[in-house]
């Protein structure tokens, strides 16, 4: 992530440089031993390295990643067609709007106990949580994208005789793709959050389980190591969506 901050004009330092003061502050406060809960960054880094080496992190991450990919994948498979339908058909929007609003605004972690009651205390609950966290933002953005398609392009497709399937595949999807990718980007962030929340509440597997365990046993360094891992994971997910965006949208 080093290198050009933009194309040409400004040759300033890269973006992440703005984090350096925070990291320096963290290290300083940690060394000053102000509180148990603020260890120096350098010791967190050492612990992280240890956990990465002995397999703890990878084992926790692999379970997390499976639930993340499944839940997010499902959110895309359900969210994009639903968002498209809501964007095109008033009736569908009318019926689904309340549910989407609930999913967007309600504290979803409160729903997890209901999911546990439904699915039992298993890792399926985590996949379901990921799905619920991600789907509403995907639906909302996809709907906005579809609604925003140029009216004359829609008329053009009708004039030249597009069938409903051709309409969806050749007009709506490509036109709404930038908005869908925004939804996917935000959805990926939400999916990671959902994954951690689900795992913490289920306390069975993955990074969330480690968070609860280290929290309960006051292994602060280990706790921070896992938090940093989650943050990096979220950033990687965002970067992947960004790459997809660059690859798919070359026409803007």
């Amino acid at each position, binding site marked *: 992530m080093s290198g050009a901050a933009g194309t040409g004009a400004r040759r300033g330092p890269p973006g992440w440089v703005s984090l350096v003061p925070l990291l320096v502050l963290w290290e300083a406060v940690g060394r000053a031993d102000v509180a148990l809960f603020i260890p120096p960054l350098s010791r967190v880094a050492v612990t992280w390295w240890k956990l990465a080496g002995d397999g703890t992190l990878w084992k926790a991450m692999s379970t997390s990643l499976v639930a993340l990919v499944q839940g997010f994948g499902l959110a895309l498979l359900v969210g994009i067609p639903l968002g498209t339908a809501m964007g095109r058909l008033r009736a569908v929007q009318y019926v689904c709007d309340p549910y989407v609003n609930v999913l967007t605004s309600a504290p979803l972690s409160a729903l997890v106990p209901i999911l546990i009651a439904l699915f039992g205390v298993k890792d399926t609950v985590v996949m379901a949580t990921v799905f619920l966290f991600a789907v509403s933002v995907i639906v909302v953005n996809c709907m906005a994208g579809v609604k925003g398609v140029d009216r*004359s392009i829609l008329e053009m497709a009708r004039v*030249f005789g597009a069938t409903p399937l051709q309409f969806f595949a*050749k007009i709506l999807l*490509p*036109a709404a793709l930038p908005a869908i990718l925004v939804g996917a980007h935000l959805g990926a962030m939400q999916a990671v959050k959902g994954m951690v929340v689900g795992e913490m509440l289920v306390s069975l597997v993955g990074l969330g389980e480690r968070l609860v365990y280290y929290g309960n046993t006051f292994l602060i360094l280990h706790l921070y190591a896992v938090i940093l891992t989650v943050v990096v994971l979220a950033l990687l997910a965002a970067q992947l969506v960004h790459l997809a965006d660059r690859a798919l*949208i070359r026409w803007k």
Partner: protein
Amino acid sequence: MTAAPAAAPEALEIRVEGVSKVFGAVQALEGVSLTIEAGEFVTFIGPSGCGKTTLLKMIAGLIRPDAGRILIGGRPVEGPGHDRSLVFQDHALMPWTSILRNVAFGLELRGVPKAERQAAARRYIAKVKLTGFEQHYPHQLSGGMQQRAGLARALAVNPRILLMDEPFASVDEQTRRLFQDDLLAVWGEERRTVVFVTHSMEEAVYLSDRVFLISPRPGRLVEVLEVPLPRPRADHGVRGDPGFTRLVERVWDTLKKLQ
């Protein structure tokens, strides 16, 4: 389609019979009746909001009349069809794909195989003088070039009726004159029926065989003007002809009363 300069697909006649349309509280069209002969080039002109674009879209099959009907080649219009094609005021090109695919799009929707439709698209791109821009994206073209691409797309499906909704409205005066002559040249090759909507009186008289003047709110046909000027219009220096100026002033006299 034959390899030799193709015999024109039989152009079609359009009959509008007692058509009315209401949008909310506005009487966009009221009892409009007219006939357009096969192979004719006609213009709808009138003040803003006079329903001329609505009437054009009804012929295209995009809007249904509240009363009356429209017959094309004797058959009532039920919706869009292969016999009609539309050139939009704001080009309506798909920004996410190349000019070549845009121009070939009408054929793509009909399931024409790729090689064949791309060849046809290239022919029409050449006719509108856009050769070399096949792989460009719409945003890389000027407004005038985008309009030409829109015209190529409309022609590529070989329609019997070409409908044009103020296609040159956003183009500068000089380019507009060139486009008008280009359009007449392309039209002259195959003589489809053309219905052209415009605000410009000079454009209406210069291009058409007949001009239909429409009044606003309620939209009514108030006058039909014959334009007996010789064709090809460009070759006969029609713009300098006093007959041309007289006809333009005739149009203005009527439109003035409608403002």
